[in-house]
């Protein structure tokens, strides 16, 4: 068995060390690229959302490298993501690929026994003892938490750094180093080392950079390829960014908190005034985060979602009201396989310009 999984931001790092810890053979799909997107779009339904297409590209590129089992998390609606597995399985089968799909759905929908059976399919391949398997899981969870935290730190500090580009360099260096090792323990020490390095990056608190929150559909904000590396672009502009949603946030909120109905409670409570009920995906979270980022004193927010995303269309209708009521600029960016980089960059620059001028105006107005 050679497993693979689709890309989504830093997920590959967590998954890699989980498989390393379990001693299971795996393929990390090549990083998302134009090629992956082109292959994916070719075999995907025309009107499906962007994540589906990129994921298809990942699978096919992994299959070319010998993968025969795909691990995917599931959901049960009302957003389209829950139907991904069904369609992808059928399409790949039609393409003549002989594959095993392991879909990890919530037990509330498929039942505990079924989930256990599916997890067993993976863990039975592992030569390790029960305790080692458990440790592999714990370590992987720690690693994904550490890399997400490191990334968040880099995004925040990029606005304050004295030597431009330092945070970005450190982050990339750390990710490269992580790929060179197969030992989860070593990975944790690398991450800790880089956390320290990141803390030591020379910053000046006087800089008072523009601060922007990244909100919207979880895949397109986490996977940098799908949003044309918006966070890197903002880092280069010297903008400090914050994104609440991350793979570790998802694991914590969806896997650990959902049995208690506490998923994203703070964010959802904040959204109540504008959107009292969940609309699937992370639509309600998007509204809540817009309000929270206003309350936390951000200069603006950027919403990103794939074309046709149903939950985000609802939140996009609501965001202009929040922007009006709170005098808080929000930019909505829609991405799909046809998004052109130049137009996208222009809109982003114009938005940052607007935020800068607003500040100037407020200061001189006083």
């Amino acid at each position, binding site marked *: 068995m050679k497993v693979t999984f689709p890309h989504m931001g830093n997920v590959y790092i967590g998954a890699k060390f989980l498989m390393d810890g379990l001693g299971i053979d795996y393929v990390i799909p090549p990083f998302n690229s134009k090629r992956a997107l082109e292959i994916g779009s070719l075999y995907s*339904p*025309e*009107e*499906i*959302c962007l994540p589906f297409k990129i994921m298809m590209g990942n699978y096919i590129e992994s299959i070319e490298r010998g993968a025969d089992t795909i691990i995917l998390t*599931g959901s*049960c*609606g*009302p*957003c*389209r993501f*829950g*139907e991904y*597995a*069904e*369609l992808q*399985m*059928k*399409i790949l089968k*039609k393409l003549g690929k002989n594959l095993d799909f392991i*879909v990890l*759905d919530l037990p509330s*929908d498929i039942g505990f026994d079924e989930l256990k059976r599916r997890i067993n399919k993976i863990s039975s391949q592992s030569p390790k003892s029960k305790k080692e398997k458990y440790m592999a899981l714990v370590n992987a969870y720690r690693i994904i938490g550490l890399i997400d935290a490191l990334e968040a730190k880099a995004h925040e500090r990029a606005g304050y750094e004295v030597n431009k580009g330092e945070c970005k360099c450190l982050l990339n260096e750390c990710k490269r180093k992580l790929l060179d090792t197969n030992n989860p323990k070593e990975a944790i020490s690398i991450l800790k080392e880089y956390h320290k390095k990141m803390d030591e990056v020379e910053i000046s608190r006087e800089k008072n950079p523009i601060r922007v929150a990244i909100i919207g559909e979880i895949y397109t904000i986490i996977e940098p390829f799908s949003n044309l590396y918006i966070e890197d672009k903002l880092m280069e502009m010297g903008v400090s960014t914050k994104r609440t949603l991350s793979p570790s946030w998802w694991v914590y909120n969806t896997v650990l908190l959902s049995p208690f109905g506490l998923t994203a409670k703070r964010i959802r409570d904040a959204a109540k005034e*504008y*959107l009292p*009920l*969940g*609309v*699937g*995906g992370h*639509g309600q979270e998007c509204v809540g985060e817009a309000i929270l980022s206003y309350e936390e004193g951000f200069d603006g927010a950027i919403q990103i979602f794939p*074309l*046709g*995303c*149903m*939950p985000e*269309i*609802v*939140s*996009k*209708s*609501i965001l*202009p*009201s929040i922007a009006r009521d709170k005098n808080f600029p929000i930019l909505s960016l*829609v991405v799909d396989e046809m998004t052109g980089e130049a137009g996208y960059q222009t809109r982003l620059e114009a938005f940052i310009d607007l935020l800068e001028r607003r500040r100037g105006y407020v200061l001189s107005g006083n």
Partner: protein
Amino acid sequence: MKVGIPKGLLYYKYKPFFTTFFEELGAEIIESPDTNKEILDLGVKLCTDEACLPIKVFHGHVEKIKDKCDLILVPRIMQVEKREFICPKFCGIPEMIENNIKDLPLITKAPIYSYSADKFINWAYETGKLFTKSYVKIQKAFEDALKEQNNFKEGIDHEGFQYKIALIGHTYNIYDKFINMNLIKKLNGFGIGVITHEVVDDSIKHMEIKKLFKRPFWTFAREYYGFASYAVKNKLIDGIIYLSSFACGIDSVIVELLKLEFEDVPFLLLKIDEHTGEAGFDTRVEAFVDMLTRRKRGNLA
């Protein structure tokens, strides 16, 4: 009190329930006119660009009648079956309307969970409060309305035509003659009878979806897939026409499922949006009819 009922979204399905309910509570009902160019244009102007056509049309209907009534029915239909959903946009439709349209009268915002009468009646209490303080009265109106709804005969099943096709699509696309450019009449003109999913019993659809890897969590997906699967298996139809609105997330999945499953069945996907031209639409339907004719001739020879 004057209650406005917009003729959009699931109006064609749940009309008997809502009209009876409000009439029993002593309301005067104002329906918006059938969809027309003006309503479509209003909807397109007011609604978020990315939304699908039916949502835009619904915005148009609300805008059209908002000045004439005290309360507008904006049904937030969350679930009609246990463990199934409708569409994320339905869950947020009152908020979309509220934020996109100015100077609104009251709108109904209570969620509807109609998989059981016990759950459903919460909506009735919440909405009925505006009319009367008497729970008994609301309960009576609710029960009568349910009865009316259950007596309502849905679906189309034409007999005596040369060919028969399954017309699949959301009720608000199939029964709105303006946005589908009178498709059913056109098909009849070509000698094609139509059968829709409501004709097939729900329990059959539940059986048919068992062959999928994952239980579909959209009511629409279960109904359409189950119906198509049953109709193909029992040779009820000569082909399938899927009427879909552009950017419909649910359709994008169901269409693909059907295409992958029924490779040998003639399949036409008709997309409608606010720019659809009638001539191109007609040509595609004609070509499909020609294809059906040739197939039949080929089979005979």
